[in-house]
């Protein structure tokens, strides 16, 4: 780790002028996101919806990695939210927005229960333990046809209810409309995740990651904080699952399998997990590569191969992810501008 990965305190608010620049940037970003779907074809709009959902999935995953533990069960946890929300709506007639929320809570509760065995493990053991726990949950979906639908999963899951108030009518079957719905929910979730990281809770997560014994010695209950990170991350993964289930309309055990987890890992690692925006950058860049380049060139079957190669190359040559390219590039440009004599200490 060449650079300090975090600086939670210093860059909080900045000067008033800096704040205005940031607000302008966000306004611009949202303007682009608002116009974007109208520039896309129908099938691209569908992909945009899934991309927005995946942004939440990978960002929630990053929160878990802040404490230093890498899980292989995160996609299954997303599935818990998806299955729970779908079953609540289908079987019990719970209105869809509420079923999603409850689905998120079920995912969080699953994580809370799993944390007792899992956080007795660390590092590699945690990785394998989370993998085993996830596979067990997945096999339960596969084995118990009632209520989980077995290998074929659940079909005809209730869609998000349409809004019809006379003058305003929104049909969420339309990808554009679901895109905006997902965008709003995901933006709120990201804001909450960001606030958590920037608060003392986030500082404590980082502290546990780098020196859990030292953190423990000054009163941090590392088990409780690891559990907290796991529970929050799982809640938002569950919300992502609910968004997915009620959009696509079907869920099945294969959809939440290890290969899907590999994609989340690829997004996070290629993007870089040191910053909040790293994994988001990763999922966007790789989805664009995937959809435009691979599908466009008809290389769809080569997708896992290319993902695998990207994963290997980024572990070998870009261990801090795409996010580190920006600062590196900026530093390199500045060095060129100032000449080689005054290198060092700039950028960040």
């Amino acid at each position, binding site marked *: 780790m060449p650079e*300090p990965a975090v600086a939670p305190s210093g860059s909080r608010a900045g000067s008033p002028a800096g704040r205005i620049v940031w607000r302008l940037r966000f306004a611009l970003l949202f303007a682009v996101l608002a116009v974007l779907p109208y520039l896309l074809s129908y099938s691209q709009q569908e992909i945009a919806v899934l991309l927005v959902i995946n942004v939440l999935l990978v960002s929630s995953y990053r929160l878990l990695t802040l404490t230093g533990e890498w899980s292989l069960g995160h996609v299954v946890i997303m599935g818990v939210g998806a299955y729970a929300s779908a079953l609540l709506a289908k079987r019990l007639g719970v209105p869809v927005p509420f079923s999603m929320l409850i689905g998120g809570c079920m995912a969080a509760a699953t994580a809370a229960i799993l944390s007792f065995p899992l956080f007795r493990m660390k590092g590699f053991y945690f990785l394998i333990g989370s993998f085993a726990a996830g596979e067990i949950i997945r096999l339960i979906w596969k084995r118990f046809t009632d209520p989980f639908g077995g290998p074929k999963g659940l079909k005809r899951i209730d869609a998000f209810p349409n809004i019809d108030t006379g003058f305003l009518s929104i049909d969420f079957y339309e990808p554009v409309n679901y895109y905006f719905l997902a965008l709003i929910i995901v933006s709120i979730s990201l804001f909450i995740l960001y606030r958590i990281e920037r608060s*003392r809770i986030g500082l404590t997560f980082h502290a546990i990651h780098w*020196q859990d*014994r030292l953190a423990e010695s*000054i009163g941090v209950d*590392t088990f409780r904080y690891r559990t907290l990170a796991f529970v929050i991350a799982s809640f938002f993964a569950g919300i992502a699952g609910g968004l997915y289930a009620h959009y696509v309309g079907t869920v099945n055990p294969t959809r939440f399998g290890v290969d899907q987890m590999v994609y989340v890992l690829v997004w996070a690692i290629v993007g870089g997990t040191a910053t909040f925006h790293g994994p988001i950058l990763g999922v966007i860049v790789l989805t664009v590569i995937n959809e435009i380049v691979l599908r466009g060139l008809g290389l769809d079957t080569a997708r896992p191969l290319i993902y695998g190669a990207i994963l290997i190359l980024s572990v070998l040559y870009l261990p801090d992810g795409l996010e580190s390219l920006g600062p590196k590039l900026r530093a390199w440009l500045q060095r060129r501008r100032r000449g080689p004599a005054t290198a060092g200490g700039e950028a960040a």
Partner: protein
Amino acid sequence: MNAPGGQPIPDAPILEARGLTRRFGGLVAVDDFSFAVREGAIHGLIGPNGAGKTTTFNVISGFYAPTSGQVLYRGRDISGRKTSALAEMGLVRTFQGSTLFQEFSVLDNVRVGRHLGARAGFLSRLLGTDRGSEAQADASAREALAFFGLEELADEPVSNLPHGHQRMLGMAVALAAEPEVLLLDEPFTGMNPEETRRMMALVRRIRDGGVTVMLVEHDMQAVMNLCDIITVMNFGALLVEGAPDEVRNDPAVIEAYLGSATGNGAGNGAGDAA
């Protein structure tokens, strides 16, 4: 074993070990070891290499549970409790060398140290209504830095700090947790005489501020000059306990150190005794 009625007896030791034993497989690292630390004292724990000092220290600070025996803090049995729970009760330890949050700024290290002092609910963290308690945490973190003369370096990344400063910062992080008993793990190891002198003055000031100090140390010179009372361990058990002058001239201590003749502690000890 507790004081009758749960009331601490006045003048009772603040920290006490009774018949402490810790085994690792067949190896007995600490063997039926007892000692008592008086409130407001600077208490040294020394012994030749492999005497079981570090294990004792790790048992007291909750890293290992004792195989048998008890650790008492203000008369309460605390053996086997988690380190974080002990910190909450006021028993805070430091680490050898530069165990710090190397990736953080100097100030953030001490801010983490304020963990117990800056409590706030989850929602207020989210909504930013913890600003008041965080501002206080910030202020007291800066105070702790000032105490160690590090306030100028608050925004530096820790990895830029020279070794001596990192040691000071380690103390500052522990002190930010507002301990009643501070356990120092080899605070002088690797320091030059000037740094050692400054560190000794700081430890005295910490004690004068009302914190009981217990330290494990190799550097005999520093221990002799600093501590009010010294416990000497050998082969996992108590050898001698007493004031520095008594310990210095005790034949058993001299023999233990000469017999093992390892490390700078032994050298200094022997020199002292001669």
